[in-house]
Each structure stands twice: as structure tokens, then as C-alpha cells.
């Protein structure tokens, strides 16, 4: 973490950062191995595992049959008995096929057994829309898993965090679900060399400001920063909080920010209703920050629809920079 800032960094894509994290994890610990569909010679549907199979061999970069439920269960069983599997879902949508193992088994095994076991499994979920893959390959289902005690759910927004959170997840004794937005895979950012971890459960303030607190997750962090830049040109300085982790949620950072700015805008790609923004809003409403609010809380989330195919429709389904700008401006100007 702290030490990472002092080590040399270079520009890597988000996908490269994840790949590097998995390679480092496997180098550091013989118990770590990768499982997933077409992650071997194919390199993964999004080329995240890339050529790792050449470096580590098919025993540690294991192609599974197209069996999400069984595969997830195998990963859980391996984790319980001493391995450190990293299981890749080809698309986060396919987690629906494995919900039983994730929700009933991985999340609950330690509790049901009174602490007799831990389940140190890492699951990776390429998520989100914007690829023209339509309704069954574009969802953002992180809130589903965020609802389940026993799981930890993270959404790295930057290459730095993608690597650091993955390495933290591998170290973590409990099941950690990593939601990676597919449109982020090719984005670049500075990534420290070598080993470091990014703490699970800590939000990061990406931009300071006093006009409004914008809490965003995953790709929305970037859209929020773009919006913030444009708003700054109008003299509106907003604070952008990258939540990074939805379970556990860094309540302290969000509450402190809202106490400072008195306004809250939540921006996330998942369906708006009963989504991450609902929890953030409720958390603020229940906290001391409520007394500081001088405007209603606003949520920008995904539309109440499956993700459509047509690119214009698809774009209209999730919050865009202009939506964020106008929502933030309205909120700051008191139009709400």
C-alpha cells in the first residue's frame, strides 16, 4: 500500500494490471491457481489471463468445461481445503448459473460451520455494458452479491486498484468477488511494479471539492471525473469518491465527505432500483450526515430495463457524462 507509492510505476492497462497481479500471486504462493473458461491458450475472453498458461502451465491456469456452477463449486472446495483459487467467470452474467455455490456455499460455509473453515476463494467477474453484447452479457450484478453477508465485493476503477485489490483478495481469508468493468480493460494508468495490496473496504477520494459529493463505482468513477473537470470550468468543484468496495462499504469516508459538501449524488451502472446507490443513500440518511444535507439525495443508475443491443439504446441505459453534469449542476444550483 504505502510502500507502493515509492516503487517505480509504469503505465499498464487495467487488463495487464490484473494479469500482472495474478502472475505475482502465483509466483509468491504455490497454492494460488487460476480456473475459468478459455483462460488457457485462448487467454481469456478479454485476454486478461493472456499468456499466463505459457508461464505457469495448464495445471495452474486451468481451463474448465463450460460449467459455471460446478466450476465455482470446485473452486470453493479447493479453497476450503487449502488452495487459493482465482476463478474467472467469462462474463459476470454467468454468475447467475453459479449463484448456489457463491451464495449458499462460499458465503456461508464459515458461518454454518461455526468458524471451523475459511473460504479464501477469489472470483472475477467481467461486468457492464458498452460492448454491444446485449442483455445477457452486459449486466452489472454486483449489488446482488453485495447483499450477501460472508462475501466481500470490490469494483476496482483503475489499473492500480485492479492489481492491488486482486492481490489483497488473494491474501484475504474470505471469498472476495471482483467486478471488473469490461470497458476498463483497455484503459491505462500508472501501476507500481512488484507486490502491493490495496485495502479492501477503503474508498478513495479521487478529486476534492466542496460543492457536492459524488460517490461512484467502477467505470462511473471515470465518467464522474470527466464531469467534474467540465463542471470545474463552470466554477463548480465537486468531490469524487471512488467507493472501490461495496461490501464492506467505507461508510466513514462517504459520511465525512457528505458532512463537508452537504450534497450527495450517487452514480453507478447497475439498475438504479435496489442498487448500490440505494445503500449509499440510506447509509447517509441514517448517519450524522443527514443533518448536513441541504438538498435531496440524487441517484443516477442504470435504467429499469435489460441492456439493449442498439448502441444508442445501450448508451441511454446507463448514466453518461452529460447526465452526470446536469444532475450535479441541478443539485448544486438548487434546482432539485
Amino acid at each position, binding site marked *: 500500500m504505502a510502500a507502493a507509492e515509492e516503487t517505480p510505476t509504469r503505465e499498464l492497462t487495467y487488463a495487464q494490471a490484473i494479469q500482472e497481479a495474478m502472475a505475482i500471486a502465483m509466483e509468491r504462493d504455490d497454492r494460488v491457481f487460476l480456473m475459468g473458461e478459455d483462460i488457457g491458450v485462448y487467454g481469456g475472453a478479454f485476454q486478461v489471463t493472456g499468456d499466463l498458461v505459457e508461464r505457469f502451465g495448464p495445471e495452474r491456469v486451468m481451463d474448465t*468445461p463450460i460449467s459455471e456452477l460446478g466450476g*465455482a463449486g470446485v473452486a470453493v*472446495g479447493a479453497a476450503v481445503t487449502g*488452495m487459493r483459487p482465482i476463478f474467472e467467470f467469462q462474463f459476470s452474467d454467468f454468475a447467475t448459473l453459479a449463484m448456489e455455490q457463491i451464495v449458499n*456455499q462460499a458465503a456461508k460455509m464459515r458461518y454454518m460451520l461455526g468458524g*471451523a473453515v475459511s473460504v479464501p476463494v477469489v472470483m472475477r467477474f467481467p461486468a457492464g455494458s458498452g460492448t454491444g453484447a446485449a442483455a445477457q452479457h452486459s449486466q452489472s450484478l454486483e449489488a446482488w452479491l453485495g447483499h450477501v453477508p460472508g462475501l466481500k465485493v470490490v469494483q476496482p476503477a483503475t489499473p492500480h486498484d485492479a492489481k492491488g485489490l486482486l492481490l489483497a483478495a488473494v491474501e484475504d481469508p474470505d471469498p472476495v468477488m471482483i467486478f471488473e468493468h469490461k470497458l476498463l480493460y483497455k484503459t491505462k494508468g500508472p501501476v507500481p511494479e512488484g507486490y502491493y495490496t490495496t485495502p479492501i473496504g477503503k474508498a478513495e477520494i479521487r478529486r476534492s471539492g466542496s460543492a457536492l459529493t459524488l460517490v461512484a463505482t467502477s467505470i462511473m468513477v471515470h465518467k464522474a471525473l470527466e464531469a467534474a473537470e467540465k463542471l470545474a470550468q463552470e466554477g463548480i468543484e465537486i468531490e469524487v469518491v471512488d467507493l472501490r468496495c461495496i461490501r464492506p462499504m467505507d461508510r466513514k469516508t462517504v459520511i465525512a465527505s457528505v458532512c463537508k459538501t452537504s450534497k450527495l449524488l450517487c452514480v453507478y451502472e447497475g439498475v438504479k432500483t435496489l442498487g448500490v446507490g440505494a445503500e449509499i443513500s440510506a447509509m447517509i440518511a441514517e448517519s450524522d450526515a443527514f443533518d448536513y444535507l441541504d438538498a435531496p439525495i440524487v441517484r443516477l443508475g442504470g435504467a429499469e430495463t435489460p441492456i439493449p443491443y442498439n448502441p444508442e439504446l445501450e448508451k441511454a441505459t446507463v448514466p453518461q457524462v452529460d447526465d452526470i453534469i446536469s444532475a450535479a449542476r441541478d443539485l448544486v444550483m438548487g434546482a432539485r
Partner: protein
Amino acid sequence: MTKRTQKQAGASEGRNLPFLYRHYSHEQLRDALRKMHLIRQFEEGAEESYMRGLVHGTMHLSIGQEASAVGICMGLGNEDQITSTHRGHGHCIAKGAEVKRMFAEFFGKTTGYCRGRGGSMHIADVSTGNLGANGIVGGGIPIAVGAALTASKMKTGKVVVSFFGDGANNEGAFHEALNMASVWKLPVIFVCENNQYGMSTSVERSTAVKDIAERAAAYSMPGVIVDGNVLSEVSEAAHAAIERARAGEGPTLIECKTYRHRGHSKSDRNRYRTKEEIEEWKNSRDPIALFEAELLEFGVIDDDGIAEIRAGVEQEIAAGIAFAKESPSPEIANLEKYVYTEQA
């Protein structure tokens, strides 16, 4: 464990003895009988405690299925692992758990194996290799394959047994898990305890194949059918499967044809099966009675020896229930303990 039985003079002389009697010592055979009685009386004790309001929730009793639990587990070492089912009390005992801590769990006490968090449906004793019963039909099968993957990767030599019922053979998890175990040649044994009914729905009405063991052909592994109420048959099949697994030759599916004397759970009115059918299984095919008759025939034990085992088990059960009653309940303040691993 693998000590060969010395032939007893007299009764067994000159006969072609079943596997069990060739493979295990008389002491081991008497211990197997003791375990079967322990399971039976544990279930009866649990049922009585439930009736008396000492156990809440529900439970699924394995009375009538003792031979498959004991016959499989007697071939395993302490370090070998199992995954179990909602009807898992017998597996837990057969694998070596103490009944007092099982009763304590059913009573919801901190001294229970799961510190009162799991109850009957999640009974487990990880220290004796039981990774847990499971409330989800088929839920433990992929987990067993994962445990076998660990054994294979770490070269521990362990084998893993996944117990499940006939109902699980129609779950996707069963098929996905068997396929992967076979593709990767993992040291796992799939033990289907076919007690004829998935809750109320008979195998005949639910399953396209006549014998569940036929499913093995689809995954290119041996499928073995045994009379699950005959300990020797179960044990022989287990032995072959364990040897195969340890030799790195991959998984086996064993189908134990058996029957549960009690209903599915405590809410069952037994309207899907006849009294005659239940009585027939109880009176003519009871696994404990069948095993005792063999032990007597082969001179491994006499009537006094059986009575002694029963009496010893009775005492153990009574002491177990007393232990559970006296044990403390969990503190409400600790409600959220064990959701996550405590980190320094």
C-alpha cells in the same frame, strides 16, 4: 485398517467369505456394528429430543441407511474427506465425530460442532474430515471435487467421498461435478444413497435411467450398484473405488440402494409410499439386523457381545444428550462472529 481377518475356526471355516470378513479384523467388524448402532440410536435420540422440544427446526433422519455411511467410511482414513447431505448425521458419526458435540449442535449450544450456527443440516466435523452436511441438494458434490483437486495438486494422497441422495442425480451440479472429476481424474468417490424418494417423488417418476449408477457411463467412470443395506457389499465397492482413486485412476460412482425408515423430514405424512413397503424394508432388509445375522453366522460376535454393544451405545447417547443439555447457549452479542475470518 487393512489388516486381514484371521479366519475363525468353526462357523466360517472353509467358506468363501464376503469381502468384509476377509479384509477387516473381528475387532474392526465389531466396531462397525457399534457405529451402526451409534447412528441408529443417535437418530432415535435426536428424534426424541425433537419431540420433546429440545431441538428446533427440522431434521432428516437416516435410520435404515446406516450400512452405506459406515461401509464407505470404514475404508477411509481420518485424513480423507467427505461432503455430506441434509441427511448427514450418519456420515458425520461414521467419519468419526463425537455424538455429544453433535447433540450439542442440535441443541444450538456453543459446544456443538458448529457452535450452534449450523444445526442438523450443516453438521460437520472438519477435524475428522467431514467438510459438512449441506442444505442444498447436490451442493456438496462440486465442493468434494474441489477438495479432490486440492489433494491432487498438493499430492496429499487423500481421497474425498461425496455422499448425496437419489434426488441430487437430477441436479446440474451432479453432472458438472462428475464430468470435471473424470476429465481431471481426481481422487473422488461419488456415493449415491438411493433411498428411492427425493422427498415424495420416486426415482421412477423423476429419473430417466433405471439405475442412477448408469449415469457413470456418461462420464466415463465405473458405476457400481450395491445393496446399500448390506455392509459387506458397500464396503467392497468402497474399497475398490478408494484404491482406484488413490492410484490416480479417477472417480467412481457407487449407488447404494437403500431406504429411509422415517419420512423425509419432520413434516412428512408418508402419503407417497405404503405402510407395507415401509414395513417390508424395516422387517426384512434392516441393515443392522442383516449385519448382526452375518456376524453371528461367521462367529465374529455372540448375542452377549451384541447386547454389550447396544448397552454401551445407549450410555454414550444418554451422556451425549446430557452434555448437550448442560452446555451453554451462544451469546447474542456474538451473532456476527464467524461471518468473516477474524484478522489480527
